[in-house]
């Protein structure tokens, strides 16, 4: 297995939004979850994760809350806002369109 592939530019936001859509999660859990779901293909580096989380928060897509974590320590949990949910739908649709298009090209050419 080669190096974990870099995330396609702009898809990290989509992954984060999707991951926190079900329930509030803290940063570490988000990274873990993305890794698990993608069978460790997608490795989110801390260096991109936290800036992205903060950016999404500032933009009002996600909201942070401090709560007790499973280990009993205070952690910052991110959850989706109403606006974030709409954004998630929009980005998902966008991604579908894009990946379908790419697939089409790759498979027919």
């Amino acid at each position, binding site marked *: 297995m080669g190096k974990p592939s870099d995330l396609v530019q702009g898809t990290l936001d989509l992954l984060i939004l999707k991951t926190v859509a079900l329930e509030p999660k803290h940063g570490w859990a988000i990274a873990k979850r993305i890794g698990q779901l993608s069978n460790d293909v997608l490795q989110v580096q801390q*260096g991109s994760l*936290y800036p992205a989380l*903060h950016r999404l928060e*500032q933009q*009002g897509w996600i*909201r942070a809350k401090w709560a007790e974590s499973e280990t009993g320590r205070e952690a*910052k949990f991110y959850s989706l806002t*109403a606006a974030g949910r709409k954004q998630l739908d929009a980005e998902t649709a966008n991604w579908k369109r894009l990946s379908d298009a790419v697939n089409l090209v790759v498979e027919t050419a």
Partner: protein
Amino acid sequence: MRWVEQLRMRLQMLLHRGRESQRLLAELEFHVEQQTAENIAAGMSPEEARYAALRAFGNPTLLRERARENWNWHMVESLLRDIRYGVRTLGRSPGFTLIAIIVLALGIGSTVALFTVVNSVLLKPLPLPEPDRVMAIHEADTIAKVDNNSVAGGTFESWRDGNKSFEKIAIATQMDVNLSASNGQLPERVQGVISTAEALPLLGVRPVYGRLFNATDDSYGANGTVLVSWGFWKRRFGGDPGAVGRTILLDAKPHTIIGVLPAWFTYPDQRVQLWTTVYFWAAPETMHSHDSHNFAVIGRLKQGVSAAAAQADLSSISLSERKLHPDGPVFNAASVRPLLESETRDVKTVLYALFAATGCLLLIACLNIANLLVARAATRRRELAIRTALGGSRGRLIREQLVEALLLSFAGTALGLLLAQGALMWLVHLRSDLPRVDAIHLDLYAILFSVGLAVICGVVAGLAPALIEDEAQVVRALQESSRAVSGGHRSVHLRRALLSVEVALTVVLLVGAGLFLRSYQKLCETSIGVPTDHVLTMTLSLPDMSYRGPAKKVAFEETLIDRIRVLPGVRAVSVTTLLPGADNGEDDAITIHEDPPLKQGDWLDASVRFVDPGYFESMKLPILKGRSFSPDERLGHNKYAIVSESFVREIMHGRQPLGKHVDDANNNQPGEKGEASNEIIGVVGNVREVPGETGRPTVYFPLYGGLHGYVQLAVHTEGDPLQMAIPVQKTVAALDSNLPVSDVLSYDQLIGKNNVSESFDATLLSIFAVLSLVLAAVGLFGVLSYIVAQRTGEIGVRIALGAQREQVLRLMLVDGMKPALFGLVLGLIGSIATTRLIQSLLYGTKALDPVVFATVAAALLAVAGLACLVPAWRASRLDPMQALRTE
């Protein structure tokens, strides 16, 4: 509802920034803990687990920074931080900071001051509705090459009635009038405007109280009417609306106040106190004459008509008038210029020249700061290198230097604005003769301009040092051991180049200042033709109403002379219509009776002065031929004339003047028909009407002919002339307490008033030039000191190996003088190219005056040499042991 969420975030990030920082730390720490826990679960020892987690995590500081960059207000935050750093860095070297701020303040202050003057005087539109359409109209002549002559009354009437280009065209001429004492207030001499009724509507003025002039007011034999300025109304009537309808005496004639003009209306300038009507004031002959040029004329163009078209229109009218009146000074064309341009044409060149000089000064100041910053950057190379190695991006470092330079330039601007305010107050005080001087204020434009300057200066000064350091060099700085202090050749090269430019600009300024100074010196050296020390001068005007007819005037003038002459401390008194050196005054078309008639279209022009019988003796104006007037050549027996040497030379072509006759149609006795033929009885020396021009042909007539009530007195005193002002004024008041006396000055002051602009220009330019010379010297000194410090080791080795101290001295001197010499040559070339532009402002001085150029070159070399000598001498005194040990 996304905006609610965003607003909430914004407020939170603004108000709880400290808490958020804490939380960010905690969040990242939590991540590391989770990772550690996972590692332990995977079987590592706790310590090992934590290290692995930290390793995986990367640079926590960098990560924190990256996360923060996404926060709201991040730009503001980082800007504030840069400013804080900048202030701290600058605070560590207060000497440098202070010098830099002062240097910039001088440059920016003077530039802003001159910008304000240029903007207020030359650029800002006149405070009138649609000022672009308001024109100043003069008579012009294609043969005599005149293009801004006053307009004759008759020509004005032909223009008014015949033109197709102007909505309105009007006379508005300034004049001084005597205002008589009233309601316990003193008599005074006030500036007024005589105008036709259309003038004020043309300018777009409506009265605050009362009404403007109508055609009836503006006619012969009407009742006198006057409109007063807002300031006059406040001052003399305490702002009482009841002033309208009252009567005041102007030159002893009753005038009814028909209205008050608005406060904003200050045309032609703030000093004008009242407006009255021209047809009421002027004699009918004057208003119909085509060769007696007395009036200033303005016009408002019809919509869509250009000044050039209007000029062609009026010129064709003038040309047909000229054909109707082939004799005498009747001009054949007109000149139409925008009013603003016409009012400011005399000062335009000099103001732009001074503005350019301040621009040079500012550029020099800016280069100097850049130079100092380059030096600082060089000494901070290691700090910068280390910071780069630790992950500081090049952009950030450049930004910091930029912020530092901008801090300096903004501080300099703040101080500079104070300086500019002071300079403007000084300038307005000194140059009250400038057109529109009352419009000069530090306004919003000036502030914006200074902010712009601050930004430009900051960027120029800040980027120069930033650009000499590239990434590779920074790395090399780290690799180099501390021995290799002589790195940074690029910075030395850059500094030398900056210096050369600085020196070149300084040379241009010095040459300009030198030329102005020399021109001023020439101007002051030229005598006006009579001695001016120990003379008191003043102006009187006898109003026609109370001094009707020649006899009354002569009686007053004679009594006054007799009374003043016997005052203790007075040696003699001279009375004339206009003193030499005071101004250009009346000139008339004259003919020599005995000569054949002139070719059609030609005329002879001479200045005309009226003098008392003792005038030539008391003024010490030499009588070259013939005799002076005798006291009985007066009233009906006054047909005599004395002419100047230049009159004989230029008008009579050197022929014998005595016994010939001069005709001057403008100086007939009332009721006299035909031309007055005056016998020439003497020839006197030439005088200059204003300093700096040649002695014009002049003809003198006896004052005791009684034609003139407007006279200037010259009282020749034994001691300080100004000490005699009060006794002389008291003597005047004893004769007529209603008669105001104006312009009470020593003769030197009176002439100095005419030189004020030249003296001012020379002073100002010299200040700029000296400042820039000092700046250039400081720059040279700084650069060479820096080079010496850098080469300490090398010089130590040289001396240790047997180099003579003189050799070292010479080596270092040459090193320092090179940029100075290069700059000097560049500057001299630049001066040759630019001084042509100010030739028109120079008197008796060539734009390429070799003395000035040589002096400037010598002075610059001397100053540069001195500035280089100190560091060079220090280098030659180096103790080699010491120098090598510091390696």
